[in-house]
Each structure stands twice: as structure tokens, then as C-alpha cells.
């Protein structure tokens, strides 16, 4: 809750909004406005999401029949590698911090901008450079190592693994700079009265994410740099033929990449906290528990990376320790899920598109999280390792967790970003198809993996045919759902789309206390925060649906 001087008319602001404040291509390419950068990130990540999604559809289509049909084995390897690499490094990691985080963080804090606006622009350009490098691998020999760059294959393959490693190195810098910027912004740029226990939970989640970005990404940088050097100099750190150790690479890589999956999912938690609270119009249950569990997850995430190495030749003792610590992640995560469910209890829930995605998340993410416990049990993991069970688990967490939360967040803040409403009916239809398609695609893969179907195979035994076909059909449903969701969002660009007004959901946090779209410097008057962002004045359904 916050106080605003009543004099300023938010619905008809005297200042132009940030789209109109400056004109021309140059004003976009060299902008230091966090909102414009957020919009540019949003456009980029959506583009890469569709590129990588297209590759996924190609993969699923190849898997319609047991034999090899459309693509060769090596093309298949390149397809899944690029699907993974683009989704991970160009979509999921930058998606929520880069797009929604950039747009919303200063607004939610009541600041005029992030702490280092020029660094923010630099971060976007570095990200673009990394994207170009990764896409260049397509024409310069492809990439077939999997997104994980495991040695010794990545140090000996004839494909463009060197360039891809450099691309990831560069992408890491973008991620580091964004994280650094956000941490400083949260510490130094809060509006008067915006104390730590009055920050929206999305800010807490982005903050925890930023901490991981700062602490983990440098190790990725040095790891891929060492892979690059190993490739060209053969120094013998990772390459066993030269006296190195590939398991050491896995330690280095997963020290980053396990925390990195929390870089991917934590912002999703933040989005869900906002959506579920606002659209059930009830004070969030367990504010401090949700906020601090984000930080707890960030810290524990650094203690569990060895569960990727259970069958890699890691010592058994370390394996057992990592297995135990991995179970510990379930505690703060469960605290979150229970708090969300308790938030819904007794709330006056509005079933609009963002809320549909919010509820969908509770279903898919919980399945993803619980199957993670199977995989963290060593004796079970020995059997399930490198099967479709892992693929399904990963997608339930990443796609069912972050992507669904991200889409829900885009719908939730779309009125703020564009100033207009998306199309509600098609939004809901898209959400329904995404839900059905997602579960059909990846739900079956749990069974496939359990029956022994290994991951990353372009052909398979005939007994898996039915399951694979169901999964492929599911992926088509999923793709159509995503396209319809895109259509629903695009409908906001119509001239006749209904105007959103400054606060269409009746929310309390600061981003709704400015015009939609916001003016260039965010707030006409500096807001003064006086209470929690979830103190809804009264339970009132009227005027909330449209």
C-alpha cells in the first residue's frame, strides 16, 4: 500500500508514456530506459523461444516412428543441442530477469531506473552478441555436444563447439551484469518506506536470482573458457587423453548449472506469488516464509550439484552427501507451494487467463518437483539416469515451472506493458491447450523413461512407438496453444482493444501506481510506501473481471 498525491491524473498523464517520450530507431538501440530494455528483451526472448520451440517440434516429428525418417542422426544431435542451448542460454535464463525483471523491478521499488542504466544497455548488447555467436554455429558446422558441453566429446568434436563455448561465455557476462545491477538496485534504489518486508515477492525472487547469477555464472565463464582452451591447446585439465579428467569438467559445469536451474525457476516463483495473490485478492499467506525460502533455495542450490554426477564416476561418499542435500531443496520449495495454496484458500478467485496459468503452474511444477526427489535418490537415479524420465522431469520444472509462470506473468503485466487488454477468450483457450498439450507431451515421457527409453536417441525400439506418438501429438497441441496465447497477446495491439487503465486488477504494489504504459521516469511523484504490497482494501469482485 502506498500514498500518492491525489492531484496527478494517472489515467490521463500530462507526460508522454515511455514509448512516445523519444522517437526513432536510435532511441531504442541506445536507450538506457529499463522499460524499453525490458520490452526489447521480451521481444528477443519470445523470438528465441519460438526458434527453439520450432526445433523441438522437428525433434518430436522425427520421433513419430521408430526408424529414422526426416533427419539424419547427426542432424538430430544438432537439433536437440541447439534446442537446449537456445532455450537455456537465450530464453530461460534471460527471460524473466531480462524482460519482466527489467521492466518491473524499478517500478515495484518506486525507483526511476535501475542503479546502472548504461550497464543495463551493455548487458542487452552482450546478450545480443552471444545470441549471434550461438546462432552462427548453425552455419559454421553446427553443434552436437548437447547444451552441457561434456568433455571429452566437446574438446574433440569437429563441430563448432569452440564458438558455441565462447557464445556461452559471452552470454554469461550479460547474465552477471544484469544480476549485479539488480542487487544494487534492490539495495540502494528503494522508495521511501519501501522496506525489505514491504517489497513485493517478485522482487525477492529476482533478488535471490540475481545473487545466484553473480555467484555461479563466473564459474561457468571459466569452465567454458577452459573447454575452449582445452580444444585448441590441449592443456590436459579436462581431456583424459592429455592427462585431465572429464569428471572434473562435470564438477565445474554443474557448480554453475545446477544453481542455474534456480536462476531459471526462482523468478517463476516470484511471478506466481504475484498472480495468485492479486487474482484471489487476498493477502499472501506466509509472506516472510515465501520471501526467505527464495533466499534459502538460492543458498542450497550451491550444495547439490553432485546429483548430476551419480553415475559419472563420482565417489560414492560424495554422492550420498549430495543426495541428502538435494532432498533439502524440497523443504523451502514445499513451503512455497503450501503457502500459495493457503493463499488461494478463502480468496475471492477470479478465473482469468493469468490465474489459469497460475493454477496450471501449481499442478505442473509440483509434479516436476516431486519427480525430482525420485532422481535425487541414488538407487533410483542409477536406473532413471539418461532416460526420458529425466527429460520429462526437466521439462516439468523448466517448461511447466518457468515457462508457464512466464507466460502467466506476461498476461498479468501485459496491460501495464502495452496499456491495453489481451483477448480474454483466446487467452483462456490457449491456456487450456497449453495445459493439455504439455501434460500429454511430457507426462507420457515419464512412462517412456521408466520403461527404459534413453534420451537423445533419434531412433528407438518399436515397443516405445505408441508412447512416442502420443507425446508427439501432445507437442503439436502444446505448440498450437502457445500460438493462440501469442494471438491473444497480439490482440492488445488492435486499435479497438480495451484500455487497461493504471490498475486493472485492483492490485496494491507500486507498479500499478503509475500510468499504463508508464511515463518515462516511472512516477510523476516519488511514491511513499506505507504498507504491505498485498493489503487489499476489501474483497470486492465488481470491476475486476472484464
Amino acid at each position, binding site marked *: 500500500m502506498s500514498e500518492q498525491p491525489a492531484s496527478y491524473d494517472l489515467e490521463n498523464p500530462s507526460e508522454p508514456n515511455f514509448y512516445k517520450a523519444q522517437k526513432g530507431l536510435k532511441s531504442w538501440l541506445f536507450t538506457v530506459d529499463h522499460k524499453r530494455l525490458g520490452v526489447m528483451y521480451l521481444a528477443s526472448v519470445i523470438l528465441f523461444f519460438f526458434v527453439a520451440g520450432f526445433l523441438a517440434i522437428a525433434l518430436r516429428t522425427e520421433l513419430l516412428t521408430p526408424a529414422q525418417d526426416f533427419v539424419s542422426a547427426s542432424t538430430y544431435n544438432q537439433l536437440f543441442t541447439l534446442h537446449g542451448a537456445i532455450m537455456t542460454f537465450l530464453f530461460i535464463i534471460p527471460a524473466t530477469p531480462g524482460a519482466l525483471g527489467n521492466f518491473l523491478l524499478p517500478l515495484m521499488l518506486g525507483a526511476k531506473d535501475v542503479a546502472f542504466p548504461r550497464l543495463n544497455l551493455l548487458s542487452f548488447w552482450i546478450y545480443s552478441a552471444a545470441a549471434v555467436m550461438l546462432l552462427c554455429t548453425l552455419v559454421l558446422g553446427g553443434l552436437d555436444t548437447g547444451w552441457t558441453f561434456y568433455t571429452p566429446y566437446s574438446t*574433440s568434436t569437429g563441430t563448432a563447439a569452440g564458438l558455441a563455448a565462447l557464445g556461452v561465455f559471452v552470454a554469461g557476462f550479460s547474465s552477471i551484469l544484469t544480476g549485479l545491477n539488480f542487487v544494487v538496485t534492490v539495495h540502494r534504489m528503494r522508495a521511501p518506506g519501501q522496506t525489505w518486508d514491504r517489497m513485493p515477492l517478485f522482487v525477492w525472487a529476482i533478488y535471490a536470482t540475481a545473487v545466484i547469477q553473480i555467484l555461479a555464472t563466473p564459474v561457468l565463464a571459466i569452465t567454458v573458457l577452459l573447454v575452449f582452451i582445452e580444444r585448441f591447446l590441449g592443456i590436459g585439465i579436462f581431456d583424459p*587423453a592429455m592427462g585431465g579428467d572429464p569428471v572434473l569438467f562435470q564438477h565445474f559445469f554443474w557448480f554453475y548449472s545446477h544453481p542455474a536451474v534456480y536462476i531459471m525457476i526462482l523468478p517463476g516463483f516470484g511471478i506466481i506469488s504475484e498472480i495468485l495473490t492479486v487474482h484471489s485478492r487476498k493477502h499472501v499467506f506466509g509472506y516472510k516464509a515465501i520471501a526467505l525460502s527464495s533466499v534459502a533455495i538460492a543458498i542450497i542450490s*550451491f550444495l547439490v550439484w*553432485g546429483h548430476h554426477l551419480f553415475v559419472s564416476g563420482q565417489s560414492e561418499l*560424495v554422492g550420498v552427501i549430495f543426495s541428502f542435500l538435494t532432498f533439502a531443496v524440497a523443504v523451502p520449495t514445499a513451503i512455497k507451494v503450501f503457502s500459495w495454496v493457503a493463499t488461494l484458500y478463502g480468496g475471492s478467485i477470479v478465473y482469468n487467463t493469468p490465474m489459469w496459468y497460475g493454477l496450471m503452474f501449481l499442478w505442473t511444477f509440483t509434479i516436476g518437483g516431486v519427480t525430482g526427489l525420485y532422481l535425487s535418490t541414488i538407487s533410483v537415479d542409477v536406473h532413471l539416469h539418461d532416460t526420458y524420465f529425466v527429460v520429462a522431469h526437466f521439462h516439468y520444472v523448466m517448461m511447466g515451472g518457468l515457462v508457464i509462470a512466464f507466460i502467466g506473468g506476461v498476461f498479468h503485466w501485459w496491460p501495464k506493458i502495452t496499456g491495453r487488454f489481451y483477448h480474454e477468450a483466446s487467452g483462456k483457450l490457449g491456456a487450456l491447450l497449453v495445459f493439455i498439450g504439455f501434460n500429454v507431451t511430457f507426462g507420457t515421457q515419464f512412462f517412456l523413461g521408466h520403461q527404459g527409453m534413453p534420451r537423445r536417441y533419434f531412433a528407438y525400439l518399436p515397443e516405445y512407438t505408441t508412447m512416442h506418438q502420443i507425446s508427439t501429438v501432445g507437442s503439436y497441441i502444446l505448440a498450437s496453444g502457445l500460438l493462440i496465447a501469442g494471438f491473444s497477446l497480439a490482440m492488445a495491439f488492435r486499435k479497438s482493444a480495451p484500455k487497461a487503465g493504471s490498475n486493472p486488477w485492483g492490485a496494491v504494489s507500486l507498479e500499478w501506481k503509475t500510468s499504463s504504459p508508464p511515463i518515462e521516469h516511472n512516477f510523476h511523484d516519488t511514491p511513499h510506501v506505507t504498507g504491505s504490497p498485498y493489503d487489499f482494501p476489501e474483497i470486492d469482485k465488481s470491476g475486476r473481471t472484464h
Partner: protein
Amino acid sequence: MSAQAYLKGKEIENPVEVHHHVAPVSLYVIILMALFGLTGLTYAVSFANLGPLSLPVAMAVAALKASLVVAFFMHLKDDDRYNLFVFLGTLIFIGIFFGFTLFDMQARDALNDEQRTFVRAEDERNAGNSPAVGISNDPARLAAWEAKHGSHDEGAEGEHAEGAEGEHAEGDKAEGEH
């Protein structure tokens, strides 16, 4: 937009105040002398034969030097507490990274030695099973190895080890994409 921050009514940061902590020149000079002294100490100690103690002693001296630099030259002693927290927190996470990895490498070595599950290039070389590093740069040794095991890379044309940078055998695969 003054970013004053409170937690339970208490101020936890003070971003409004400019930190003017100016240390006297004499302090800087003393620190520099101490650093030089400690450098001399490690240098001298390196000639003494300390055996297994050598590494801990050198690291302890380096850590002492580093803390002098951090505390006084980098002003962390009198700086915002949060900056100190960032620094110490980083060290903790480096500790986690080192701790688990070194622990596993050590524990695994014992197991591997026992079960011979994992064999490194050096063992292979000692056993005469591979033209591992070093040998591939050395025409005489490479020829001896090939005489024993048959040519390693049929496709490669001859041996031009002299003058060449020396990438043969193992190197050829990685060099392919240049």
C-alpha cells in the same frame, strides 16, 4: 526517492551519507612495508625445506597479505558492512566449490586406485599403452611407440615433427576444424 531502509524500525543501511573515511598516509606506508616484509618471508621460506608444511605456510602468509590489502587499501575495515558481507560471502561460496570438488577428487582417487575403474593418461603412458602427450611431439619416441603398437593415425601424412608445432596423433582430431 531517498532510499532509506529500515528493518523492524531500525536503520540497516545509510545510503545518504557520503563515506569519508580518510586513513593517514603513515598507515598506508606501514601496510606497504608489512607487505614487502611478508613477501620476503615467503621468498625466504621457499628455500627452506618444510616438506608438507610448505603449502599451508605459503597460503597462510598469502592470506595475511591479502587481508592487509583488503582491510586497508580496499577500505573494507571501515566500509559499509554489506560490502564486507559480499566479500566474505564470496569466500564461503569459493569454499563450497573447492571443498566438494577436492573432496570428491580425493575420495575418488582412492577408489579408482583400488578398483582400476579410471585410468589417466600418465598411467597409460607408463604402461606403454598410448602415445600420450610429450611422446607425440617427439619423433624418436613416437616412432618407437608406433613400432610397438602400429601406426596410430593412418590418415595423417608422414611425420614432420621437426619445425612443426608438434600436433600429431592426439592433436589431429582437435585440429581438424581449423
